């Protein structure tokens, strides 16, 4: 199955014109598989962190969304222990007009504004709701612990 032109174009553009704080490179042996690095946004508990993710474009892409997962441990109410992300555009709000870049930007934005009302990691969300400062502190610790080189 030849690689759709769209994927090639997206890959090229991600390389040529990367979004700030985001890098994505595809594997040479599997052009649908991307190594992604997202820098923790400023003014967020994740500032200073370098987060690794994996991104996979399924066969049906762009009619179905890419699969994205954090590889780096992260303390975030919408991201679980396995790195799975709770983000609507990765599920039912996906649209073929979205791209890898927009997906990753959304993930980046998710880091800036955690949403404990729509949790994936329930314990983290609980923590966030009951004591936001403590939760942020934990997040900062995790960032230092796991997300710095």
């Amino acid at each position: 199955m030849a690689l759709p032109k769209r994927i090639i174009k997206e890959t090229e553009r991600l390389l040529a014109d990367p979004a700030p704080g985001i890098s994505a490179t595809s594997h040479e042996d599997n052009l649908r598989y991307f190594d992604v690095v997202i820098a923790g946004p400023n003014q967020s508990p994740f500032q200073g962190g370098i987060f690794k993710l994996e991104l996979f474009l399924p066969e049906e892409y762009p009619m179905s969304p890419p699969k994205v997962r954090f590889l780096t441990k992260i303390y975030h109410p919408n991201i679980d222990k396995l790195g799975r992300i709770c983000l609507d555009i990765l599920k039912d709000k996906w649209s073929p007009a979205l791209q890898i870049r927009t997906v990753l930007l959304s993930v980046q934005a998710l880091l800036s504004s955690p949403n404990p009302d729509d949790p994936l990691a329930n314990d983290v969300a609980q923590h966030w709701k009951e004591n936001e400062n403590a939760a942020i502190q934990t997040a900062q610790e995790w960032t230092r612990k796991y997300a710095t080189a």
Partner: protein
Amino acid sequence: MAATRNLPEHLAELADILGPDVDVAILEKLHVISDGNLNRAINHFYEGTYNTAAIPIRGPAQPQAQATTSSARIPAGQKRNATIVNSDDQLFTRRTGATAQCVKQESGTTSLSAAAGKKRKIQDSFFPKYLGEITIVAYALGGMVKVKAGEDVCFERSRPNPQSQLGRKKTGWGAKPAKENNVVRFTKENGFEIGRLHVDTARWVSKIMDYGLVEFRGTIILAPPILQTGAEIVLTMRCYLTAAAFTELGSASKVLGNSKAGSSFAKEAMETEDELDLKFRKYAMNAMFRELALTPIATNTTVGPRDQNIEIFSSTPEVTATVNEDEEEKEREPEVSDKELDVLYEKAQQHGREFAPMDPPPTMTYTLKQYQRHALAWMYHKECSMMTEGHQTLHPLWEAYEFKQEDGQDLKSDEPRRYYFNPYSSEMSLEFPTSDQLCRGGILADEMGLGKTIEILSLVHSNKMDKAELDAPEEAFSRLTTSSSAPTPRRSSPTTLIVCPMSLISQWRDETTNSSGGALTVEVYYGGARDRTDESLLRRGAPDVLITSYGVVLSEYSKLVGARENEQSKSKGVNDLDNIKAQNIWRKGSALFNVDFHRVVLDEAHQIKSRLTKTAKACYALNSVRRWVVTGTPVQNKLEDLFSLVHFLRAEPWSNFSFWRTFITIPFESKDKDKAMRVVTSVLEPLVLRRTKNTKDENGDAIIMLPERTIEIEYLKFSAQENDIYQALFKDGKTKFNHYCRAGTVLRHYASIFQLLMRMRQVCDHPLLVVGRGGKADGAQDLKDGPVQLEELMAKFSGDSDQNDTSFGASVLENLMRNTEAIPECPVCFEDMADGVLMPCMHAACRSCVLDYLQVRDDKGESGECPICRQGPITENDLIEYTTSEAAATGTRKELTDDERSNVSGGNVLISDPSGNSTRVIQMRRNNFKSSAKLDALMRHLNRDRKADPDTKAVVFSQFTGMLDLAGSILDRDGFQFLRLDGTLSQASREQTLKAFKDPDHPATVMLISLRAGGVGLNLTAASRVYMLDPWWNYAIESQAIDRVHRIGQTKPVIVKRFIIQDSVEEKILSIQNRKNALASGLGMTKIEAQGARMDDLQEIFS
């Protein structure tokens, strides 16, 4: 009862014997025909021959048949020879008051005058003329008769009994007729029957007697003193030709013998009863000549060894049975395979080489290619060589014989010493049959694209009419004008008449003009411009070339025939006024037929391939000595296709249908193909010149180099929706077909099966073609509400609205208009948005991407929305298609295709930039046009072609005009400008269309052609791409269409794509095509053709 009947005395005795139930009239008749002889009367009664005796049984076409009698009487005073003359008829006639016209043929007066063309007046006493004698063995019937050697006897036919006669008439060819009555009796001079001829002799003697061609007189040589039943009697039988034998056969059968154009005013030329009769006659005459051991003193050797020929020819005495088979065979007459055709044409390619290549006179402005100069040399030779031959040669079909002298009698010096016999038609003549009417012409069968038109024109230039000839009276064909009224004396015209299909008229005219630079005058005789009178064609000022169509020839011919019929009724004094009118028509309307043209050329002459069509007959009736037939395919399916051409050419002997059947058709059918092919080759060899694109010249180089041609079949798949529709139709069809099969009524429902097939084929093109009744009408219906809503939409987005979201819409439109360079990228597939659609939110994406997304959402049970802004819900019908193009071009296109537009799309909205300085125009239309697999494939290719080279021109063929409509709308959608050629165009607009397509400056790059309208003759070399949307039953038709593009003048490689839907009827059509036994003639097929053998094909299709 008998006692109560008041019978005349002479009948009483007969009535006593035959019983009381016999009608008086019959008794009277019996009495009459038996000449009062009681025994014979009884014989007649029980044989049932009295009904037919002396009553014409063969219809008026065989007057000679009536010359024989059922009985013979020895005329008083004629002691030495018993003769079979018709005095008995006279008797009969006088007594019964029957019509007088069936008597007295033996005097020869009537038949002589009928023997038109044999102008010499021969004295009545010349007949019967001694031919020869033969010793035969007969057997006695027994009884009381005593005979002795030296006694004269007369021969007498016993008539076929009424049952067999009835059987033959009623059942036609269908059933085997009752056993033939061949009985020939011989009687004493006083009428007592002695015996009968042996059956071998009787078989031919009986026929000849039936036709009254020969009188037989007999003398007993040896007989036993007492005649017992079956005793052998040796007789001398002397044969005397009657005048009837010299009656021209043309009056009896129109296709036979020297039948010339004039005779084709006659009835159907089927193998009718007339022809059947002639078969018998031929057989009998040839048998007689053989038995009499007559040998010709001269023959024309061109036909080959006569004996062999005659053997084949005469070896069918059981003709009745043969005829039955013939009829059946006609229906499934084998077609000629390509390989066989190759053999046929092999020799024809060599022609012209034997003559030095010839250049046309300087009046011809074209330079001929080498092979064309060869062709000119050959044609020139064909026309001229015959004319220079001074001495008369015997007609190839005829043989010359010398009259033998009957012992003791001298031939009178003033009487003819020779007679001529045509063993193939059994005609006889006292006139020398010359071959100077042999055809001066032939079949120019060069493959399409080799420039046949130019070759013919070079001939027109090279061989013009001599002035002397213009003034000389033409007598060669005076025989043709056998009209009962005084025929208008026909004169030669210096004009070359060219008959071609209507679509080619302009091409001929232009080529003629272009080739001559004014040296040739040319006129078109067509439509309203038919004011030519025959007089004007005779004058010096007559055009060199007159071009007309088959239709015109046919219509004038029909008028002419009508007028003739009227004239005939006039002679019976019916309606004077009508007749005056009719006569005027016949004078006025027959300019084509009142003139002997210098030359007649039939272009695309396979139009007359069926000899039974009126068009063919009309063409036969055109008069000229130089007759040419131009066709790329002289044999389309059957060898008999060729016959019609040869018949038009009047190429003896092959223009004789019976001859043709005997030597060619029948051997070909009866698996003696090789022989038939050999004969055909020898027929064709002198007549046909055929070169193909592959023909090599003397040096082994191809005579013509055409760019490469690739034909590819592209297999397509139905979309799910299309497949549903197709499968539904297919199942329906299959059910019906199987039902018909079981009921055994397939043939009866042929039409409806074809309807089914047709619909299946149409669905392969586009479901719209069959959905609903008109298909096309439905589509138009759907489109109708498009523009209104669209306009509303446009109004909504027109920019001066104060709604926020509309400003985006306005900017989109603006963008589309301004953004002249880059084609926007589809946000979904990232490709160039070639077929973009706008969603109601004015976001754009590829049509297919949007549709895919809508489908995905639909699968999930969600309503459609814009992939970009998620505005929804939207459906497929909300999409607006748009294309952008240059304004100037669009303007032109609009002018050109207004007609098409009005009945196809109707959904266009043109938006021009209000600033007025942009050349961009956006066309938008609602996306309610459903494409199909075929159309998608077509557009894919066309878009690709256009991308590669915007000047690429393409021809799109379909056999369904509805499909052309749909293709037109999708072309519109994608901004292709196109032309269209179909059967509805008038001649003028056809010309215009073709011209426009040729014009490199014309914006149209696509030509839509209906396969049937565009198959013939057109020159479409401007295109280099051919798309065949659907397969035809017979690939030859498609191939011919392709050759319109791939022909001389083509400079680019030609790529042909044939679209075939996988797993559909189309694939099966392909395999049928490959087998080439096909429902070949497709929809044009006649009932007869359709029957029988096609079952296999149908079964395959519905398997």
